[in-house]
């Protein structure tokens, strides 16, 4: 079967798109992938914390921002805060008091979902730094956080999303919003479910909460999770399944 991979670095992450099937080699497929990458770059321009010219940076400087996309993301962040008992919170306490707006834990999944819309009609996966949305059936390995060149397991993901969050790697320390302290207790949390926005939010919130989050994760309809604690032991929701 024809299969083709595309890779670009966007949002400071390696973003891989794999397309397969009869049209995978066509110029149309390449255009669709280019559209997906362009969408991610456009969202990065709005939401990047590292670009002073982004709307998000303006918002953090206290400047007025009129951008429907920002409103949409802030609404989603509030819903995420409510759904996670406050373990996802885009408003993080600053060391010197006050808060800083950092919706990046939600924006990535949300932006990838938007980008995936450009690939409608293709069998593909769009993997942004380990979080991906999948169309068709793809076999996805879950990285061992202690040995990134090893897999904990592999799962068949079909028309769903899979996200992994963890506190261990550089540049992505997860903070417990209730304490402002770095999250403890889990090396990584992987969540599978229908929407990448929520899979990613739930994984991040669980990583912030610690191992007891497995009980909360088990109550989320449509989502299943695999957690690795600081000792390397695995926890999973009862419905976490493995492929045939």
């Amino acid at each position: 079967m024809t299969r083709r991979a595309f890779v670009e670095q966007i949002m400071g992450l390696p973003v891989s798109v794999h397309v397969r099937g009869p049209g995978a080699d066509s110029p149309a497929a390449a255009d669709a992938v280019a559209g997906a990458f362009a969408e991610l770059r456009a969202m990065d321009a709005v939401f990047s914390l590292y670009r002073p010219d982004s709307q998000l940076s303006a918002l953090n400087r206290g400047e007025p921002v009129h951008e429907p996309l920002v409103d949409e993301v802030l609404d989603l962040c509030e819903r995420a805060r409510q759904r996670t008992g406050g373990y996802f919170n885009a408003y993080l306490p600053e060391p010197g008091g006050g808060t800083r707006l950092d919706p990046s834990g939600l924006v990535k999944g949300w932006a990838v979902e938007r980008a995936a819309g450009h690939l409608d009609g293709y069998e593909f996966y769009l993997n942004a730094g380990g979080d991906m949305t999948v169309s068709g059936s793809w076999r996805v390995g879950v990285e061992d956080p202690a040995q990134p060149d090893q897999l904990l397991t592999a799962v068949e993901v079909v028309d769903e999303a899979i996200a992994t969050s963890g506190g261990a790697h550089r540049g992505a320390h997860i903070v417990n919003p209730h304490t402002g302290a770095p999250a403890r207790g889990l090396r990584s949390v992987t969540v599978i479910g229908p929407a990448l926005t929520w899979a990613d939010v739930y994984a991040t919130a669980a990583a912030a909460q610690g191992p007891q989050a497995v009980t909360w994760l088990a109550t989320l309809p449509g989502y299943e999770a695999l957690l690795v604690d600081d000792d390397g032991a695995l926890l999973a929701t009862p419905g976490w399944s493995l492929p045939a």
Partner: protein
Amino acid sequence: MRKVTMWFLATIAVVVLLFSYRTSTGPDSAPSAGTVGGSSTPADRGPAGPARSGSTTVADGPVVQTKRGRVQVQAHISGGRITDITPLTVPNSNGRDREINKNAVPKLRAAALAAQSAEIDAVSGATVTSEGYTESLQAALDAAEFKAKP
């Protein structure tokens, strides 16, 4: 064929024992994926399975006494590969054990399956960063399918 099946189940029992031990001791360092893979090596040895394509053998493993109680699993074996592992008996003596087992069961299924050097299409992980990309498994998967842009 029966003999081969028992081979698989003996392997699974080892994995079960490993994990039962792990969950009962807690803070020990995790067995590496290599350890798990090593214990399952016999499962990887070529045409050892029932080998009739399209046929699945379902077999119950031996009951294994562990520190936390008796453990028994059922394996589905198709084409010489373990395709599913279901717990038949798990220790259930108190609330904490129930909690542990709820979580340990998927774990042993995962480990036994992952030990088969599965073919994968993509990698989900928290360490897939730009700095680490070139050494990542995802990069290898990308490279296998990558073509220069026209």
